[in-house]
């Protein structure tokens, strides 16, 4: 994009950041699987990005930078949840919000539900590459691993996802309360 001399730094950050919000929300939701939590994570991510805007490398990849922040926020969130013990796990099974789209897809294979069975590393690589269309190199940057690791992790993740889906509907396990 052409940078005009008139654009103030503030306008600049608003437009650039907001353009990324739909994708950030999608990634956060696919990870957290709860709408409010996902938006909390996105909000944290954006707040952090704003406070560090001046530290951002001008030539750096904004999208990769934001997704890295968001993923780290989610990992922090997971750690916090683990510390608080098992009761919180139930929160993952939302009492009422069974989303219409999910319901529809359960019959033909709820891939999103199956994805929940995978460790975060594998979920993230599938989402970044397969959904967010990050190049393998960009995904390596966000995940902070070498390119070769991205390729092998992606392969293992898709294999695991296939197995989960073949094994039946794991989401039924946590639908039953």
């Amino acid at each position, binding site marked *: 994009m052409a940078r005009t001399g008139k654009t103030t730094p503030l306008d600049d950050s608003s437009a650039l950041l907001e353009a990324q919000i*739909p994708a950030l929300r999608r990634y956060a939701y696919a990870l957290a699987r709860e709408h409010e*939590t996902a938006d909390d994570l996105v909000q944290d991510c954006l707040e952090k990005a704003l406070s560090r805007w001046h530290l951002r490398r001008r030539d750096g990849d904004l999208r990769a930078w934001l997704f890295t922040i968001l993923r780290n926020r989610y990992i922090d969130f997971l750690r*916090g949840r683990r510390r608080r013990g098992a009761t919180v796990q139930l929160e993952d099974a939302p009492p009422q919000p069974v989303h219409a789209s999910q319901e529809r897809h359960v019959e033909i294979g709820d891939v999103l539900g199956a994805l929940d069975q995978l460790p975060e590393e594998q979920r993230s690589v599938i989402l970044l590459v397969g959904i967010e269309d990050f190049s393998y190199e960009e995904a390596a940057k966000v995940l902070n691993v070498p390119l070769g690791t991205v390729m092998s992790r992606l392969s293992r993740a898709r294999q695991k996802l296939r197995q989960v889906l073949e094994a039946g509907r794991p989401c039924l396990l946590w639908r039953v309360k």
Partner: protein
Amino acid sequence: MTTPIMPIGEDDLQAHVDGRLDPVRLAAVESYLADHPEVAARVELERKQREMLRTQLAQKFAEPIPPRLRIASLRAARHAGGRRWLLRIAAGVALFVIGVGAGQFLHIPLKPATMADMSVANEAMIAYRTYVVEVAHPVEVGAQNEQHLVRWLSKRLGRQLVAPKLAAFGYHLMGGRLLPGMDGGVAAQLMYEDAAGKRLTIYICSGDDGQTAFQFDRDGSVSTFSWLDQGFGFAVSAALDHDRLLQVAQSVYQNLDVAEPALASGKGG
């Protein structure tokens, strides 16, 4: 045909799933897959699952951005947050000065948030997380027995309780339960629900003497406002943002305030 080709690797197969092979490599991979139907079936399955996942998540991507994520509002909150923080420091300094200077002349020993009300918030959030997800038994005594519920909890806590009316915020009382409190005391939880089934809890426990300002805590999606007042700790928890929860907490505070300070019958009934 005659050009030697690199053997097909797993990375080629993944790139095929992602549709990222250049035409030359694509041709090589496709001819490999034609000879290996089992691998071809697996690659096709992975490609399909990738598409299904994209479809499932397309709706989330298309959703309008909630106002709270607008950069303008985040920036405004940041500035307000900065000011609040300064005010809080200023208030802390003022309290300290008043405390040192005026001592017992103040009837209410106001003090800044301490560990005590942090643990009230913590206990309240644990109780929230434990019971809000309950489908079968969210409460011990239901709202249909509100009088009994309030009398019982008041007696056990040693404080006249009321179940604040939160209809103005769309919440109705579901009921409540008795919980073990801190330091061997007891605690009570009142649970509310709105029309969408979203729940909110009020947590009350015996706590330190004194009075504190509202304290805000957030843990994941759960926000809590807590405060200490006349030997009791109070907390309001819900999956709401700061501003909306603050309105409810203020209303709860005012509602509970009309109650008499303590019951003559005391604790332990």
